């Protein structure tokens, strides 16, 4: 059901990532202030953009689920958020490394995007615990959808508030060349972003297919062996499509 185009996407991801990597390593210029380390920017920012996009996409699929009641949409929403959380960890990690390298501290409260991202991350970190604390699968999906919608709407509001607060006090510490990028940087950046998006979609589809297959297996087992042949549901996936 979900596996269409998986092979094409995988190949595309691979190509794009290699391409982006090559560009970052050889094509993009070294930053005057921060040196080679600044190139983590090409990893950190696309990760952040895609992660946030993933959260919002999770919210969008949640809306679709509430209208269609099609469990496939719920699964899409869940996987999008789940993947974005993992990316989010990477964002925080790369952000830390970057901060350490260029500022000497593992975390900077002055950087508004990092802080607002942390808040969003903390919120969505509750998504899975919330989900799995509700037994009834239909209700679980419904409540998760409500949460995802609230979270998705929250992302822009949060950024707005934090950005506004911070621009008054501190200039952006980790900005690159004050906003406008020279051509080579821009190209590299764009390629990195595109590569990240494609990678996300590929991973998303992989996880969807894998979970779906798992559920079909369960259904088969039940049909063949009766209720007893099926073990209790693992706590790592929304159950039953």
């Amino acid at each position, binding site marked *: 059901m979900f596996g269409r185009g998986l092979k094409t996407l995988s190949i595309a991801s691979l190509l794009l990532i290699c391409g982006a990597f090559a560009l970052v390593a050889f094509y993009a210029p070294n930053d005057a202030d921060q040196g080679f380390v600044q190139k983590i920017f090409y990893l950190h920012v696309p990760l952040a953009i895609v992660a946030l996009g993933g959260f919002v996409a999770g919210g969008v699929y949640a809306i679709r689920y509430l209208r269609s009641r099609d469990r496939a949409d719920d699964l899409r929403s869940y996987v999008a958020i789940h993947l974005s959380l993992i990316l989010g960890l990477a964002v925080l990690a790369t952000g830390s490394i970057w901060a350490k390298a260029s500022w000497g501290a593992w975390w900077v409260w002055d950087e508004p995007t990092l802080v607002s991202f942390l808040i969003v991350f903390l919120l969505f970190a509750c998504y899975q615990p919330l989900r799995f604390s509700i037994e009834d699968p239909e209700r679980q999906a419904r409540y998760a959808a409500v949460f995802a919608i*609230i979270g998705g709407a929250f992302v822009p509001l949060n950024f707005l508030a934090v950005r506004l607060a911070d621009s008054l006090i501190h200039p952006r510490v980790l900005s690159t060349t004050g906003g406008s990028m020279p051509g080579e940087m821009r190209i590299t950046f764009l390629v990195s972003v595109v590569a990240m998006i494609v990678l996300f979609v590929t991973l998303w589809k992989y996880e969807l297919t894998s979970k779906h297959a798992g559920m079909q297996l369960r259904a088969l087992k039940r049909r063949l062996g009766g209720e007893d042949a099926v073990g209790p549901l693992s706590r790592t996936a929304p159950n039953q499509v």
Partner: protein
Amino acid sequence: MALVRKDLALELRTKEAVPAMFLFSVSTFVLFRFGLDRTTLEGDLASGVLWVTLLFAAVLGMNRLFVAEREEGGFDAFLLAPVDRTSLFVAKAAVLFGFLVAVELAAVPVFALLLLGPSPVGALPELLAVLVLADLGIAIVGTLVGALAVQTRARDLIVPLLALPLVTPVVIAAGQATAPLLAEAGAAALPGRWLGVLGLYDLVFGLLALAVFDFLLED
């Protein structure tokens, strides 16, 4: 509405939520006084202390908001009645808002006495405006989260975990708005943009809550 009246009657009878919220606020103020080792605060710091304390007190209120419904086995009585589902949301949010206002009426003067250096009286109307807008946002989100948490197992934990991040923009905006009002040199003008942010937040989450609340109740 009947729902609001019922909740208020319950609260008056059991006195579970508001006194706890108030006592918590006062204790926190005292803690801050000793923890920060200062006898007076002003400006940014005062604003921050006030809002963080109010926020945690609000979380206490959120936890208690749906207790009665939870104890009588869910929302069945309400669901059986020929009323719009969203009216439950409006009623509960109004009650939470009421709790917050009640606590603030008592706690803010205490704050002024205990910790505040400059007198806030001069900026009172602006302060009230910020309080009202912020309370509205907290009430909306708190009711949503409270309803979400009713059906989960770890509900007392889930409420703060969800509510605190969600309410962060309110804290930021309210804090920024209040800071100049509590300045040492006498209250400065209120930066209007923060009222705008609070208003936007209230609007967005209010509409969102109205749209989404139904789904939390149905089965």
